[in-house]
């Protein structure tokens, strides 16, 4: 399933210019923005690492409070959405603007841009949905950004077993968890909304073609970045 492709890296602005970066402006702009987003998550994740180093006892053991299996499935869902995103990109690079098309000699139909982008949107929205449900459940059990709510189930557990559930009110655990995953979820939501917007305004009316699919490539970069951050977050928040 491999063949040579040309990328859009040569697209010039519609007036004479120096070579510059060699990639078209929208892509360059998105990469620069992603660099800034790395710094933003550095502040949040870096603070988490620093705070945890400073007071490791305030954190619960992995799996004690958070639902790791469910989040593992959710992680897989996000990774799937990343794959479907790159399939969407590959599809439009080949000019496949359609939804599904029968391919002679193959059982599965061939997916075009409309199909794969829709899969991405659905998986992305699914990720956010599962996160929201998780949040509601956690808060219900007593896990809040301020730590364990007084009198809640988790607070009792923490009193009984501070090693497993985190010492005291586990304020730092809650603070860092909700802030990091919350802002990641915000980024995912923004991505889903952007993809929906593009889907209805550009993808369905078939405005993208093999000659110009910049919007898909750029939103794809953003989406993969969001996935990348989650890969890091999942490990250091849920598994350590």
């Amino acid at each position, binding site marked *: 399933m491999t063949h040579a492709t040309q990328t859009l890296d040569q697209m010039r602005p519609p007036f*004479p210019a120096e070579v510059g970066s060699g990639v078209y402006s929208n892509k360059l702009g998105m990469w620069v923005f992603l660099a800034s987003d790395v710094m933003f998550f550095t502040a949040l994740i870096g603070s988490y690492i620093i705070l945890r180093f400073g007071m490791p006892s305030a954190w619960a053991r992995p799996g004690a409070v958070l639902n790791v299996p469910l989040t593992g499935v959710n992680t897989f869902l996000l990774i799937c959405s990343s794959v479907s995103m790159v399939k969407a990109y590959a599809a439009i690079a080949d000019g496949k603007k359609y939804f599904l098309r029968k391919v002679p000699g193959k059982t599965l139909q061939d997916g075009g841009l409309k199909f794969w982008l829709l899969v991405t949107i659905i998986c992305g929205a699914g990720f956010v949905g599962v996160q929201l449900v998780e949040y509601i459940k956690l808060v219900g059990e007593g896990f809040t950004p301020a730590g364990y709510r007084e009198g809640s189930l988790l607070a009792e557990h923490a009193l009984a077993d501070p090693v497993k559930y985190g010492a005291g009110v586990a304020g730092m655990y809650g603070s860092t968890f909700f802030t990091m995953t919350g802002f990641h979820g915000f980024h995912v939501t923004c991505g889903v909304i952007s993809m929906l917007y593009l889907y209805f305004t550009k993808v369905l009316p078939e405005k993208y073609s093999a000659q110009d699919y910049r919007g898909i490539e750029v939103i794809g970069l953003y989406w993969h970045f969001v996935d990348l951050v989650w890969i890091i977050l999942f490990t250091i928040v849920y598994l350590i």
Partner: protein
Amino acid sequence: MTTVAHTRTEAHSEHAPMSFWRKYIFSTDHKIIGIQFLFVSLFFLLVGGLLAMQIRWQLGFPGKPMPGGGILPESMVSGGVILPEYYIQLVTMHGTFMVFFAIMPLLVGVYANFLIPLKVGAHDMAFPRINMWSFWLALLAGLIMLAGFFVPDGAPRAGWTMYAPLSARPDLSGATISQKLWSISIVVLGLSSVMGSVNYITTIINHRAPGMYWFRMPLSVWALFITAILAVLALPVLQGAAIMLLFDQSIGTHFFDPVAGGQALLWQHLFWFFGHPEVYILILPAMGMVSDIIANGSRKPIFGYHSMVFAIIGIAFLGWLVWGHHMFMSGMNPTLGSTFMVSTLLIAVPSAVKVFNWMGTMWRGNLRFHVPMLNAIGFVSMFTIGGLSGIFMAATPVDIPLHDTQFIVAHIHYVLFGGSLFALFAAITYWYPKMFGRMMNEGIGKAHFFLTFIFYNMTFFPMHIIGMGGQMRRIYDPTIYDFLKPQQPLNVFISYSAFALFAVQILFAFNFLWSLKFGKKAPQNPWDDNGLEWSLPNPAPHGNWDRTPNVYRGPYEFSAPEAGDKDYLPQYVKLPTDRDPVPAPAPAGH
């Protein structure tokens, strides 16, 4: 020239005539956006100045009723006397407005927007609509910040550096709503800054006209480019920190609360990790523009153009490694303290290279002392003093008695006012013809410069002395300490000088506003300069050029023999010996 790449010829004249709103208010034209930033930032500069006047009243005449104090509410001013709670708000908001909403937008929001496309030969920024959003978000952030004065409990009061836990605990600081507004405003401003910087970086990399090689770009563009890289990487860290602060104040998180396991020092690290690149954001564009102006005023190429570029890059790179020098007194690890001391001392080197190069440029030049040149020379001398006081503070043992005294305040103001603001006076005067089609009045400009220079030094130089004498920062009434009482006459002197300094700015404000309508109509190239922007009429039209200009040489070809009888040779002028630059070829298969 074999391949002729298509030019965007009449794309702009084909627009339907735009309504007033689309043309001047919700404009995507980088020049209009730059001018919008200019007016808004000058307004915030005025706000910051008014706050400073009140601070100086209190410091010079503690306990005396302030003239005009009656118009302020009782919670701030009691019987005309500034209350301590209000004083600390003044100090905090003066810093906040000046740094975030005056100097940064004036240097970056105005001049990056206005100059970059003009000086690299582009028709507009890479992302004009994002550019428009960048302005409106900055304005929104400024208004949110201003609202802090008008909400219950008044403005934030933990200093412009907002150290936790004072800033995180409304029960300690007394500022409830406005502290949250501060955080929100900073996040919005950060967004505006990042959006702008993405634009500047992309435009400079990808939209340079044919022949505009990297080492043919004017230093103002180099400086703005490096500044944008700093901004894009530093502002998000502040946004993260501000969000954590907001959560500490509102939803009960404990990032900076040591009682619950947080770390108060974490705020300082995050803030200054942003804060130090931020101060280079506040000075590099000024340095860049001053380079252009000094070369112009000396009628000579900039001395050591390449080393100037590497110095800018060196300052920006080292700037990430010095943030701990703001925290020498925080009780940090002494080994780390030494590391920061070394890196801070190192960073003086590229700055010094630049100062020597400016002097080298002026040496034996055919000096023209026009208003921008005067202000630029003022910049060099004042920035040097500010830099020298910086060396004092870089040495940790020296910083121990000096930290949080007026000595630091003197340093800040020498680099920010003596540095950035003088550079802004120069830049505003220099590019005024390009923006508005008229010249600012030369006589008033010179009077403004000389009076400002004199009163400015009278205001801020003595601060070094009283700082060394032990007067702290942000102190409400120095006379409560016996050891500070002998210095009080200096405080009075400073206050009188400050009032005079503020009053003198009326000259600049008048000059600026009056010349909009009644200034002399500007010739196309009033300063006999070489930049691409001077190939356009004044003011520059929408879309800049009909046909993208070609660039044949570097930006500082003053007094070049090839120019014949003129002492300047613009980048866009084609001599018989020049060949047209070859633009990048159209992509294959398109």
